[in-house]
């Protein structure tokens, strides 16, 4: 039973002026699978190490359950940090591969046996305990590696990009395995990744960091449907959300020559322009001069539907995006696979009014 709480937790590395983790506030429920996601350098690993007791906390506190662990050493925290790389040892049996870290921790033999057997049952490895790893399939080897972490039965699992070195197929397999395993074990887990797809598919909730600052913490669905700001909107979702600066009018905003009605109250104080966001699947495409004029550059056929990548005809309209991606970013629309426009064709697009996102152009905050 353990909740985890980052309470205004801050870390400034010696020699740096700005915090790498800046007043982080996260409440993690007992048994929850929380994913920390963000671009490289956003402070994910630092936050994880702070929780593990491996990184000094310069401000705020960290709680595990009802214990303030801010000043406790790693071994007094009952957390298990799962290494990025798990080697399997060829001369050792599967049982020893799973249990050896407990031996290092000084756990007695009987207890190790019991924990290894329990873990093997959960992982469906009981029949293989006395074999050598060579005799196992790729997926089974991966499960042995997971077994190494499970047998430690900590209050909290900490995982830092554990899948980053796997090939694409095994990565997807293992992703689901870890997530379902975590749910069965019910152990609170903090999982770090830079990959938003991984975050979306694995987490009960996602905490998105940028430059050490928490941008939003929400369920994957909420994060996708109601991104709190432009950064979240650009980061979550693939292909990414289209973000276009448009003028504010009396009744709403103008998207090309298409008027989108938006209650005045929502746009109050937003200035003369706002950013409208629309996900590729929420783009309405017409050929009758209604909406923003786009010239089709590329069409990517996926069978049932297709993605159209295009550029606004009006060169003054550029697409906003997270970070460096903004330059030359195409407008992306998902269309019916049976009715795809041709390359070079002009199409007109506007957002489905039920799935429109509006952001303050200056602050980037979500409006409404």
């Amino acid at each position, binding site marked *: 039973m353990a909740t985890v709480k980052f309470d205004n937790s801050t870390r400034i590395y010696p*020699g740096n002026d700005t915090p790498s983790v800046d007043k982080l506030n996260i409440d993690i429920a007992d048994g929850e699978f929380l994913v920390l996601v963000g671009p490289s350098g956003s402070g994910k690993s630092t936050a994880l*190490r702070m929780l593990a007791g491996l990184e000094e906390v310069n401000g705020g506190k960290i709680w595990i359950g009802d214990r303030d662990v801010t000043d406790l050493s790693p071994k007094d925290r009952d957390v298990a940090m799962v290494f990025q790389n798990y080697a399997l040892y060829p001369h050792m049996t599967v049982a020893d591969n799973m249990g050896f870290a407990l031996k290092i921790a000084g756990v007695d033999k009987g207890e190790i046996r019991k924990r290894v057997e329990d873990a093997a049952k959960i992982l469906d490895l009981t029949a293989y305990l006395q074999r050598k790893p060579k005799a196992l399939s*790729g997926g*089974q080897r991966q499960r042995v590696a997971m077994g190494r972490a499970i047998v430690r039965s900590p209050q909290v699992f900490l995982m830092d990009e554990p899948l980053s070195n796997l*090939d694409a197929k095994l990565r997807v397999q293992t992703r689901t395995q870890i997530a379902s395993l975590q749910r069965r074990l019910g152990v609170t887990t903090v999982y770090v990744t830079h990959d938003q797809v991984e975050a979306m598919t694995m987490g009960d909730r996602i905490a998105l960091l940028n430059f050490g600052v928490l941008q939003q913490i929400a369920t994957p669905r909420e994060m996708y449907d109601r991104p709190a700001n432009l950064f979240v909107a650009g980061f979550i979702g693939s292909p990414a959300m289209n973000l276009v600066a448009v003028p504010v009018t009396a009744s709403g905003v103008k998207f090309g020559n298409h008027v989108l009605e938006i209650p005045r109250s929502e746009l109050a104080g937003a200035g003369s322009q706002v950013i409208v966001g629309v996900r590729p699947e929420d783009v309405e495409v017409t050929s009758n001069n209604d909406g923003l004029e786009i010239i089709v550059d590329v069409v990517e056929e996926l069978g049932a539907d297709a993605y159209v990548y295009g550029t606004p005809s009006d060169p003054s309209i550029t697409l906003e995006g997270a970070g460096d991606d903004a330059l030359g970013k195409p407008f992306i629309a998902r269309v019916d696979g049976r009715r795809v426009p041709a390359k070079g064709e002009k199409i007109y697009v506007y957002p489905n009014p039920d799935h429109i996102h509006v952001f303050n152009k200056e602050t980037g905050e979500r409006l409404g």
Partner: protein
Amino acid sequence: MALEITTSAPDAALLDLPWHIPLAEWPDDLLAALPRGISRHVVRFVRLSGRVVAVKEIKADIARREYQLLRNLRRLELPCVEPYAVVAGRESATGEPLDACLITVHLPFSLPYRALFSQSLRKGTAIRLIDALAVLLVRLHLDGFWWGDVSLSNTLFRRDAGAFAAYLVDAETGELHAGLSRGQREHDLDIARVNIAGELMDLEAGGLLQEERDPIEVSERIVERYHALWEALTGPERVAAGERWRVDERIRRLNRLGFDVDELTMTTDIDGTTVTIAPKVVDSGHHSRRLLRLTGLDVRENQARRLLNDLDSYRAATDRGADDEELVAHDWVEQIYAPFVRSIPAPLRAKLEPAQLFHELLEHRWYLAERAQHDIPIGEAWADYLAKILPTKPDERAVVGTDTVEMPVLALPDA
């Protein structure tokens, strides 16, 4: 798709390798059968334009990152393998995409720890490997490199007189910062301890460990050695104002450990009675740099110590204590070291490097002298060594035929 090759030293021979074949299936005639550590990726040694390179099949983004990191480590003059190229955009004959390859230059005379343990060994080898790894880890940390996967498998060892010198071989998980926090260093140590214990237990399970101590105890040594060395190198020290000689003493102590001091920060306390000194990071290779300066010989730290000692004996024996050090060094190379190197029979050159052989020769001479209870001329010791000892040594330029294990991380169908 076209092959995409990144390298700082293009070599047309690179294009002749069969990039359209998965690395695991490359024909034997291309390969050099050298031992490797445990790895999850497929790694093969390949002959390329007269030298041997290591080819690792790995995802393109990770390959590029590792290539770049290794280049940065080399720029910082840290001991690691030399990155040579990244080959991406590979496709099989039927058009299936293949993973990229990272190519590094095979480190000559390097020994993976598993190969070391399969040779008959002096007692205490595990300990000496760990001591070498501790030095490597301290050096990496001093320059701000967090390794993330410290292990014996990810380290290569070269003989260095009676000890070993360690080199980083796998930088896949590494990060380079301006400096590291204590937490980052402790994290690496924790990883090191668990990995080393696992690796030694594995050797034990395979009956390869002839060590008297148990793996866990040995693995804990990395933490102790690391902390002792880190403290000696960076720890502040308080010195009474009248004891300035202690400052010099500190510098000499660091030199003895093989490190050079760049600068010392000295802060005097308010009433001026004590001075706190903290060495500013220091560079290792004190003796090897000194030997290089004196003789132009480029060898490892402990080998350099050994050669410098012999140089000192030569100076004493020839009664030239008052002569310029450089002149004496020049004569020592001309009269002792160079003739020795020339006298190594060609077929034996692959056995050990000259500086290592010279160290062994000095050891052998000492052993003969002790047995005979009088001095033995170097020529006599050499003849005895050549006849009796050297032929029994395995080739170490490229050790062959030890057990090598790969645990590929591939999405094989589940049984």
